[in-house]
């Protein structure tokens, strides 16, 4: 039974990851103390890496997570240690931060519920979004044994000079 539920969940894994992505963005956009914002930024970077990896971009996902996040957040951690205060604010210790967090969460929940309402629902904001599967990738056939996004990045030094 657990295997059945995991089988159902795997088709929506990208949608679930993107919902957690938005929730973690709300976590640091509601501006608690910068230490906690930095911690939540690490989590959102990991979830964003997960989204990229589930579309098959292994090189780009590892690039953003290992190199960019690690470099950025070490520097951010040291700078926050310079300019921080004695009693850092958590999300529940200030009404403004907590209110912003609740507003962000509510907007994401409303969006997710509206999207999940039916199987043929279409959301049109400026463009049209449909629920034809979370990972709709155009099928252009098999490209062999090499990864085409790594070849595209390597083309920075041949085509992109």
């Amino acid at each position: 039974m657990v295997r059945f539920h995991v089988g159902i969940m795997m088709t929506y894994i990208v949608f679930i990851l993107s919902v957690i992505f938005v929730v973690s963005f709300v976590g640091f956009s509601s501006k608690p103390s910068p230490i906690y914002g930095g911690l939540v930024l690490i989590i959102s970077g990991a979830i964003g890496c997960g989204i990229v990896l589930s579309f098959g971009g292994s090189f780009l996902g590892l690039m953003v997570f290992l190199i960019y996040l690690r470099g950025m957040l070490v520097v951010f951690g040291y700078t926050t240690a310079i300019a921080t205060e004695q009693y850092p604010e958590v999300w529940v210790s200030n009404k403004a931060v907590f209110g912003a967090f609740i507003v962000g969460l509510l907007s994401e929940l409303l969006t997710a519920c509206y999207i999940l309402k039916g199987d043929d629902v279409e959301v049109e904001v400026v463009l049209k979004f449909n629920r034809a599967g979370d990972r709709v990738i155009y099928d252009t056939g098999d490209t062999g044994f090499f990864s085409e996004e790594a070849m595209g990045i390597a083309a920075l030094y041949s085509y992109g000079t």
Partner: protein
Amino acid sequence: MSVVYINIFLAFTLSFMGLLIYRSHLMSSLLCLEGMMLSLFVMMTVTILANHFTLASMTPIILLVFAACEAALGLSLLVMISSTYGTDYVQNLNLLQC
């Protein structure tokens, strides 16, 4: 267009709002700037991977390089502010008095 894009647009808009609305620390606005760059990277990468734009795969790397440079600039400004005023509170930045 798949549904993941709505959530990534929403993440970008939320961190953009967080960047524009100041609270007490300048550092948290810089973190929101990093969040904007991260959501732009994810959106660009998902578009490129879903449509097989192979040669465009270099643009997320270039975006990351320039985001790192701008984060370094922002952090150096913050260190200068912190060494002048002691903290990085935005209420200290009142030389223009407007």
